[in-house]
């Protein structure tokens, strides 16, 4: 029996038309040029958000006075002085390892043989990092600590070979095993939440150029509805077009960052990843692909939310109001995620952007538990539901035209 390809033909025709409309001069400038310009203005936003958090850095040294030089003490003095200028970090000195391991943020423990190993050079000295926060801030703070440690050692051991200090990352004891998704998830948590929020906010404005409101204004809805066998093809075509627009905007966004960082003489790719807060020492290409896929997934859901609301509200203002819910959800997700990036959040359990985010963390962490299937089912379910509502919306008599 010959397969009916009507739906495929119709989807291709609708898609071609929608993409053509997207690449009109005026729309293309707005959708693809706007983000590039915006990046010059928003380039400092990630650091703005991150610097507003105050976190405790617990420090404990069991280092003994070895040959009159207490390296651990010297390191603590220098680190305290270094972070005294940073209002987002409060250094707290504690006298036991249990307190460090019980921190809700991050801590450093210097063991008793630290000075001995440095002076004697029998083995590489080690100190321990406890990373409860698991965020991009941890990376930068621990990098600073490592640099200060090496500087202190270099000063003490002037004119001698510097020992290679090794850091050991230990999970905090206050979090359960389920809550700790590992360093990879920690490395993508903050950048991913930030990217999801920013991409949704950035792309919401472009919807009015490609959504159904435009069809209503052009009075083409009646023709489309009368000519298309399955009305959800109209929704699917618009959604794919919106994703193309979003990805184009995102490319423009990245190019804007590259251009902006070029001006500040940091043109390499590492600089770009640093700007997103992606620690490429921990992450690999697959992790970046996962981040990309779930950003696209979040954009897809955002587009469908906007479309479902827009098509179900008849008023002309709907095309401007409908992105607000999507942005609101994304904003709520982002600010809750900021406070506790890798732990499962009950307050976000009904937020579809959180599902994408959480699923990405679980996949990157290699935690292939039943949780993955739950979030996957939720995402598929919400996409199907939103397509259904958007289709019902465009079939409404009152939404045929903008009267």
């Amino acid at each position, binding site marked *: 029996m010959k397969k009916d390809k009507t739906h495929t*033909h119709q989807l291709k*025709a609708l898609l071609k038309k929608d993409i053509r409309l997207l690449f009109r001069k005026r729309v293309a400038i707005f959708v693809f040029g706007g983000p590039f310009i915006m990046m010059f203005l928003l380039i400092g936003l990630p650091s703005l958000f991150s610097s507003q958090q105050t976190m405790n850095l617990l420090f404990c040294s069991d280092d003994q006075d070895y040959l009159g030089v207490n390296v651990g003490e010297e390191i603590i003095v220098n680190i305290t002085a270094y972070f005294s200028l940073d209002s987002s970090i409060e250094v707290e000195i504690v006298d036991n390892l249990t307190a460090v391991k019980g921190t809700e943020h991050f801590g450093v423990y210097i063991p008793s043989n630290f000075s001995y190993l440095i002076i004697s050079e029998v083995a590489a000295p080690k100190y321990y990092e406890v990373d409860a926060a698991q965020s991009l801030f941890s990376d930068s703070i621990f990098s600073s600590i490592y640099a200060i440690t090496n500087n202190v050692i270099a000063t003490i051991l002037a004119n001698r070979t510097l020992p290679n200090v090794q850091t050991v990352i230990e999970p905090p004891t206050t979090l359960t095993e389920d809550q700790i998704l590992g360093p990879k998830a920690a490395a993508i948590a903050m950048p991913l939440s930030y990217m999801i929020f920013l991409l949704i906010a950035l792309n919401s404005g472009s919807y009015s150029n490609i959504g159904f409101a435009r069809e209503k204004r052009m009075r*083409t809805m*009646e*023709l489309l509805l*009368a000519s298309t*066998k399955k009305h959800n093809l109209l929704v699917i075509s618009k959604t794919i077009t919106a994703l193309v627009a979003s990805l184009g905007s995102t490319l423009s966004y990245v190019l804007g960052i590259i251009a902006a960082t070029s001006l500040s003489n940091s043109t390499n790719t590492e600089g770009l990843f640093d700007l997103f807060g992606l620690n490429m020492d921990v992450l690999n290409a697959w992790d970046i692909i996962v981040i990309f896929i779930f950003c696209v997934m979040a954009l897809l859901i955002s587009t469908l939310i906007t479309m479902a609301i827009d098509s179900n509200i008849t008023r002309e203002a709907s095309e401007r109001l409908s992105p607000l819910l999507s942005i609101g959800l994304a904003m709520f997700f982002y600010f809750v995620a900021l406070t506790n990036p890798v732990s499962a959040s009950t307050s976000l359990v009904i937020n579809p952007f959180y599902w994408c985010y959480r699923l990405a963390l679980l996949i990157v962490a290699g935690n292939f538990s039943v949780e993955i299937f739950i979030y996957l089912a939720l995402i598929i379910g919400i996409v199907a539901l939103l397509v259904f509502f958007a289709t019902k919306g465009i079939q409404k*008599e009152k939404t045929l035209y903008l009267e």
Partner: protein
Amino acid sequence: MSELMVESRQLTKYFNSLLAVDRIDLQIPKGTIYALLGPNGAGKTTTIRMLLGLLQPTSGEVVVNGVNVSSEPKLIRGEIGLLPQYSAAYYDLTPMQNLSFILELNNIAYEDVRNALGEYFRTLDISYELLNKPFSKLSGGEQRSISFIMAAITNKDFLILDEPTSGLDIARAKYIRSIIKYLVEKQGKTVLLSSHIVSDLEELADYCGILKQGKLIFQGKKGEIIEQFAPDTKDFEDAIVNAFGAKANVIPFMGGNK
């Protein structure tokens, strides 16, 4: 009456408490031009949307070309050539892009209709330059002509043409009428025509249906409407005006006379 393209039975549509279409029994024979007439707000657009499967009737049913649209609206979609009241085309695309969109949507290869398109362009005086301008840059008449071609080129058995000559100059309106007649007489198509232009109706309509306040107050051959509503003047326009309930023979403005 020969085989029917459209047959409705007690077709009714309420919008909340507003009765838009009231138990109409429409019968449009195949291979004819049926003019659906009525004053503004009579229910013409609602009726057309129910035929297209875009609106679900509150009660009653409608069968179009053997398809029960009331129960299976999906089956009729894409089976009717539609010229909406307003020029339904993408203003940022060129006429050629609009036409190719309609062809692709109906899975029609350009090669299969190349000659027919050429005929339409020649008859309606559409130049090659015009085809590659944005639709928004075309005059109202040119836009209407392109919209008409978009409806006709899909080669559907049933065409719904809402005000096909609205905004056209005399020559183009005449050409459109001749094309409609050709499509019906030579190709056996059925046309549902909604128009307020008397010359269109007089020249084209085989059958008329008159809607008033949602009711089908008349349905029959063109000659019958004159017999029923203007037996004295034998004038088609008077018959329509009388059917609408207005005064046909008194034009009081500035004391003028007919």
